[in-house]
């Protein structure tokens, strides 16, 4: 692991000294939640990869290995906060209240998968890299102008830091002291391109100083450290102290998407190291067991519950009635102009003059 500003829970499951005091301060329910959510996220993720192989969903972006970064950060947010995710934040979305079934619908190519239930402030996955950053900044700006306490969070990867949008968003955030958090999961690769080809400085976090915002680099596989960094950033933002750039150093165990083959560009020994040595779940499991908060039986039970949850979501998603083609037109404008009405009629086979 490269040097980080914060690591509480070592890969073997031991707490550092700082980590110990943080741990003591965390309510027991949250300790268990860290673990339970990570397992649920992984359970969902592994299942999705299989669903793709079976041709039951389209190209899918797996997150295995990044559970701590997503769970730790998402658990520090509240309902009023806005989340602007990339395409890999299924873990974040779940925690924010996005039903698993809708996440699956998204990967089935269905627009319903973009729409969270009432009151859940998660935007659809941002596929064009880094475009969510200016928008999260703008949403945060609105909160500030309206004197509301919500913060906005943009999730993105290490590759996104090369885009102009990254710069413009962080720059506005610094200039206007906005309550926004830029949460980067540095998983070392943008598809095949290693971070060393993305940036001439070794860390994402140090870029914060170009914008006079706070930057912090945290062990992204340490859910406790991630959570504490995020909590600090949220507090800062709510207090009016402005933006934070968090770099969570992590690794995707698998390929970029199910359409990618990571063995083409990653060294097996590097992968091995991350997969075997630095897994985010096993270290938390070890800690909880050592602390007597978790038994092997709890583990089994929870894993089964997760499997059941995911099973149900898959069933629901697959049972969802085929989308009506009318979805194409339903929300293009609040009111359809005549030409579009004609096209709609054409589609539905009710004629329509325009072919």
């Amino acid at each position, binding site marked *: 692991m490269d040097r980080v500003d914060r690591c509480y829970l070592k890969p073997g499951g031991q707490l550092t000294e700082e980590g110990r005091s943080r741990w003591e301060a965390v309510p027991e329910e949250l300790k268990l939640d860290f673990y339970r959510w990570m397992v649920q996220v992984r359970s969902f993720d592994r299942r999705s990869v299989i669903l793709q192989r079976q041709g039951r969903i389209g190209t899918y972006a797996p997150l295995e290995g990044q559970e701590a970064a997503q769970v730790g950060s998402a658990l520090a947010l509240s309902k009023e906060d*806005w989340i*602007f995710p990339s395409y890999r934040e299924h873990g974040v979305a779940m925690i924010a209240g996005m039903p698993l079934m809708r996440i699956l619908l998204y990967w089935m190519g269905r*627009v*319903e998968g*973009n*729409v*969270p239930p009432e009151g859940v402030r998660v*935007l*659809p996955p941002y596929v*064009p890299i880094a*475009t969510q*950053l*200016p*928008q*999260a*900044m*703008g*949403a*945060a*700006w*609105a*909160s500030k*102008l*309206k004197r509301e306490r*919500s913060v*906005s969070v943009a999730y993105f990867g290490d590759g996104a830091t090369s885009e*102009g*949008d990254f710069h*413009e*968003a962080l*720059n*506005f955030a610094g*200039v206007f002291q906005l309550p926004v958090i830029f949460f980067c999961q540095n998983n070392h690769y943008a598809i095949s391109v290693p971070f060393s080809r993305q940036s001439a400085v070794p860390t994402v976090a140090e870029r914060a100083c170009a914008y006079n915002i706070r930057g912090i680099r945290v062990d992204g596989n340490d859910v406790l450290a991630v959570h504490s960094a995020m909590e600090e950033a949220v507090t800062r933002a709510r207090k009016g102290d402005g933006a934070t750039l968090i770099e969570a150093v992590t690794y995707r165990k698998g390929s970029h998407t199910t359409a990618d083959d990571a063995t083409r560009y990653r060294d097996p020994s590097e992968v091995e190291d991350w997969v075997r040595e630095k897994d985010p779940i096993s270290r938390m499991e070890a800690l909880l067991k050592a602390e007597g908060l978790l038994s092997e039986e709890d583990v089994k039970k929870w894993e089964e519950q997760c499997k059941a949850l995911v099973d149900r979501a898959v069933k629901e998603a697959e049972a969802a009635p085929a989308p009506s083609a009318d*979805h194409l037109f*339903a*929300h*293009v*404008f*609040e009111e359809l*102009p*005549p*030409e*579009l009405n004609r096209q709609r009629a054409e589609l539905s086979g009710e004629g329509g*003059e*325009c072919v």
Partner: protein
Amino acid sequence: MSEKTLIQGINEGLRTALKERSDVVVLGEDVGKNGGVFRATEGLWEEFGDERVIDTPLAEAGIVGAAIGMAINGMRPVAEIQFMGFIYPAFEQIVTHAARLRTRTQGQHPASLVVRAPYGGGIRAPELHSDSTEALFVHTPGLKVVAPSTPSDAKGLLLSAIRDPDPVIYLEPMKIYRAFRQEVPEGWFEVPIGKARKVREGEDVTLIAWGTMVPVAERAAREASERGVSCEVLDLRSLCPLDEEAIVTSVKKTGRAVIIHEAPKNAGLGAELAARIHELAFLWMESPVKRVTGFDVPVPMFALEDDFRPSQKRIDRAIHKVMTF
């Protein structure tokens, strides 16, 4: 009511919106203390303060991206792009997000915002300040595009755009910002998006124009009438959605159409208009539709601008051609 120029109509529209809707903010480069490089926002910063009329850093993607985020979070932003030629850094935010967010979220986030930009040539501005690329936005489903040609429409369309729940690109004909004055209604007043304005009744040819080209079309119509050709002139105002009914009704009456725009011809909005006229009024056409447009060359520097932009002479020739086909 009072006599105003087009740019004063815009200024009035912004002032009215800021006064009557607390969710409106105006943001962009030099829109604050300076009052805008064309004075469109003159006096607003003084009146509404730094949180409603906001000078931003020089970054168009940042400006439009921020506006989208603000719209998502319940505000009604009006972003200024200083010249249409500088809208391209924001292109991705506009076409990928603003235009599609309503559909993508099935109505949850309509991206209700306005992007204002002065367009076209005619002011001896430096190079690359004179683009008319409305067709790029018209071709992007989910956007509305409007372009007023009178002070009163300028105000009324702007207020419609601001109230409109859909994202609207509001194009300002800078050449005629101060060309003439007109009575402009006070207070909140709307000109509906999607409706063309019949500038002049005629029987023989329909001239279709918008923005800066409307006065040129009017002049051409006046002169044509002296030669015994009666032109109907339509000011589209709304480039998307189009007022098909007005267009088709007029063309069915006259049987001939000349379309005039400043943008290059190839795949310009004139192509869509010509295609639709043929689709919807094929049997009524006495001659093919003619397009008088900018040439398919990069917008030149100003010394050659008058050769690039549709001239009255070229319109006259087109009218002659459709009359003598």
